[in-house]
């Protein structure tokens, strides 16, 4: 389940921010590497909401929750278990 989730997130990042080419590591910092800026972060949040049916609260939109693929998966997992 988690593997599938990670794959979908990676695919989105590669298609949206890398033009469909290249690869990213699951613990690679998306912001520090410069791959994603604040605008990209919101694109990512929108994707997570639409794709996984997760409702993200304003106070949860922070870099810590979306800093790398692993963190995003953890966040989705926590939200899905909580709801």
């Amino acid at each position: 389940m988690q593997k599938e989730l990670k794959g979908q997130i990676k695919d989105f990042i590669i298609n949206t921010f890398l033009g469909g080419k290249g690869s990213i590591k699951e613990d690679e910092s998306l912001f520090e590497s410069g791959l994603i800026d604040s605008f990209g972060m919101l694109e990512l949040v929108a994707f997570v909401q639409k794709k996984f049916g997760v409702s993200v609260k304003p106070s949860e939109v922070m870099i810590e929750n979306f800093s790398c693929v692993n963190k995003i998966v953890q966040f989705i997992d926590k939200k899905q278990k909580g709801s």
Partner: protein
Amino acid sequence: MDKILFFLLFLTASFLGYWFLPHKSRSPFLLIASLFFAFSFSAGYSCLFLFNIVIIHYISNILKNKNDRGKVFYLRLSLLWLIGNLCFFKYNNLIFNFANLLLPIGISYVTFRLIHYIVEVYRGNIVNTSFIELAVYVLFFPTFLAGPVDRFPRFNSQSREIRKFEIAEFNYGLLRIIYGVIKKAVIADRLAGFIMPVLHAPQGYPRGIVILSVYGLAIQLYMDFSGYTDMAIGIARLFGYKIMENFDKPYFKKNIALFWRSWHISVYSWIRDYFFFPVFGCRASKAMIYLGTVVTMVVFHLWHKATLGFLFLGIYHGIGLLVWQLFQVVKRKYSFFKNVHSYRWPGLISWFITFSFVSFGCIFFNSNITSAFNIIKRIFM
């Protein structure tokens, strides 16, 4: 007494007192020194700051024992109070015109720190803080006047750390202060002497000189502002504190998004984390994100100053960022653009366009709207 002499005496006394005291007395001492510094500007406003710190500290303790609904209520109450305070004083003369109040010096930075603190307490990222720790963070005198707005966890871990005086840190601090003084007093102030007469009466000068003055203005603003930051970082380092940097070679960046990640970093990242992300982050619509980019830039600039010029500047940079984001979409679609920045000449052209875009925006930073349009008229007509 001369202001500079007063500050030097105050700094020397604070420095000696701080390092002679044992570790547990240093934070209370820094708070007293910072309060003395704040009171030297205005006793009344310093009491207001203290009152706000007491309230936020009190509410932060309540937040720890509340359920989710209760927490949201207290968070909203705190934000309403703090933002209300800032807006009232910042825009009093423009909107309320109540009793000709002066703008309290340092109110923006005090408010930003308190909002950051209460939001992070709400999120559970800050726990177990004493009143003195919070007050030292908010009023820390090296960064009281012009920032940077450091983050509490980073700052407080340094307050708690038992430190010994280190000559290398002291030397670094002094060097940063000297850099700051040179940037501000030697470069920025002298440059202003050359360019301001041109920008105030552009019709009397050749077009080339006016254009050069606009670029000069961008450099002057950077030297002025980053000079203050260097001094603040240097003074903080004399007390062993490593404060976050506010600038990262902004005029060498090759696009406007990178520029904004390297200019006034502490406040820009604050606006991003506590305005752009929470307000526009969960809308799940691209149009809202685009709108959010422009609105955030407008808010950021109107925070600087509530004038027509700053409103224009906010829209100008907002649209700049928007165009850059739309260009990213195009870039992803067409392979020709993908590696365009890694080539030398397109890289130089990107840098020149970015620097020119930012420099021309500075016209609105420095002048009223009529003078700004006079400069533009002289350049383009």
